[in-house]
């Protein structure tokens, strides 16, 4: 921060392009007092939360289904491998055409991008089930649901949580990207507007806000992971030390 404060003063960098920290902070404080900023923040968070929830639910459901039926797994592997690397931004024009600048076009991108993160992790997780545990459950005549509930789910849960953590940050990136490029309401749209109207300190302030948002989401996801997996061996050791 001090470096950024000092740079424009020394004239090394043009102050118009990189305003000193004090100006950014002032702009940030001013933004915090505006209703517009808070609505944008709420919009971004709403798109993020809804998108993530849909992606996680769909990813877990589809993942457990595909993962537990070997034929399905073999059948879908190539399709998943093909669809996954398709950059989600390729869908931007489609989203604009279908939904315009509504919340739904942001959601389309967020869900598409984070769904794969969850799905792939769930697939790994289901694959990781101990065959002995599975056979034991079978010989105790646990039904399909019982096996999923007591054998597959606990094994897959650490993977699911990893998937959720990855998806949470991807979802934020895509939510803000969509708003930036499409102009659907949210922080991204505010940044685009600040840039277009040459309000440089405001733009920097908003970028800082997105960064803070990212850090917070990371921390929350990590805390949730530790909580949900407190029973798991890898975390148990960590918690103990």
């Amino acid at each position, binding site marked *: 921060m001090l470096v950024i404060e000092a740079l424009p003063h020394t004239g090394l960098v043009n102050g118009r392009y990189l305003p000193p920290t004090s100006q950014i902070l002032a702009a940030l404080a001013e933004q915090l007092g505006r209703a517009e900023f808070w609505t944008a923040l709420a919009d971004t968070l709403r798109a993020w939360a809804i998108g993530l929830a849909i992606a996680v639910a769909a990813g877990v459901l589809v993942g457990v289904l595909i993962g537990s039926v070997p034929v399905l797994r073999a059948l879908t592997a190539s399709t998943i491998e093909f669809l996954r690397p398709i*950059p989600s931004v390729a869908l931007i*024009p489609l989203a604009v*055409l279908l939904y315009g600048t509504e919340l739904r076009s942001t959601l389309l991108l967020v869900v598409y991008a984070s769904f794969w993160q969850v799905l792939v992790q769930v697939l790994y997780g289901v694959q990781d089930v101990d065959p002995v545990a599975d056979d034991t459950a079978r010989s105790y005549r646990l039904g399909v649901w019982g096996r999923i509930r007591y054998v597959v789910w606990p094994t897959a849960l650490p993977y699911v949580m990893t998937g959720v953590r990855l998806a949470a940050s991807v979802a934020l*990136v895509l939510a803000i990207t969509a708003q930036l490029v499409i102009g659907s309401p949210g922080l*991204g749209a505010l940044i685009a507007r600040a840039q277009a109207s040459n309000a440089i300190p405001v733009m920097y302030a908003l970028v800082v806000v997105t960064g803070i948002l990212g850090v917070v*989401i990371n921390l929350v996801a990590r805390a949730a992971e530790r909580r949900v997996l407190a029973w798991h061996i890898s975390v148990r050791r960590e918690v103990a030390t």
Partner: protein
Amino acid sequence: MIRLLRRLGYALALPVLLLVVWWITTDDSENFYLPPLRTILRAFAETWTLERFQADVLPSLARFAAGYALAGVVGVTVGLLIGGLRWLRALLEPVLEFFRAIPPPVLVPVIMLFAGIDHTMKVVVIAVGAVWPILLNTVEGVRSVDEVLVDTCRAYQLRRFARLRHVILPAASPQIVTGLRQALSIGIILMVISEMFASSNGLGYTIIEFQRSFAIPEMWSGILLLGLIGFALSVLFRAVENRVLAWYHGLRRAQRSS
């Protein structure tokens, strides 16, 4: 032979089925936004001619390659440095975490200020966005190098450079590759975004232009092409990874089966 055929059948069945379903359900589609697959494919052949490729696709890919390479070199070098020096790591870690958490696309307008909207801007945007996963994974990789190995090297009085080259770099390489893989998809996204934001050529620009002029089949063909490029890059990456990390995957397999 039969096993190979069966695997091929499994791999192809669903994609073929999906394409057939797409073809049939949209064949007499009157919906303006969802043209028949036939039309899209024809548009694909007509749109992405050799000329178009040279004018729009190659510049995009060149920028991507330049930005990605830059991110790789900077990320690994700085990562080795930070990972190797404990005090530097402690000093920089919070800052790095913060920079990584900033969604890379918001850097597009920021970097536009410095670098204008030309070629350099896009390369810088790609590099700045893609560098973080590489950097942080390298730091992690260096940190998790087996301490006994490092101490052994010290005992044998290996020079700093030799230690880096023969011990730390190979030991950290699986992590570095993970970072490079994450950076790959970020790089592609930024390539497209930076062109959608401000450009006069390139893949992202062309697709957005089609959308704005309501050339829907052409737009779909552009989406299709982007998908193919993403897929091709990930296949290429996997091939390189399997080569470079063959020893690591073999080691893992051996550990698992024992």
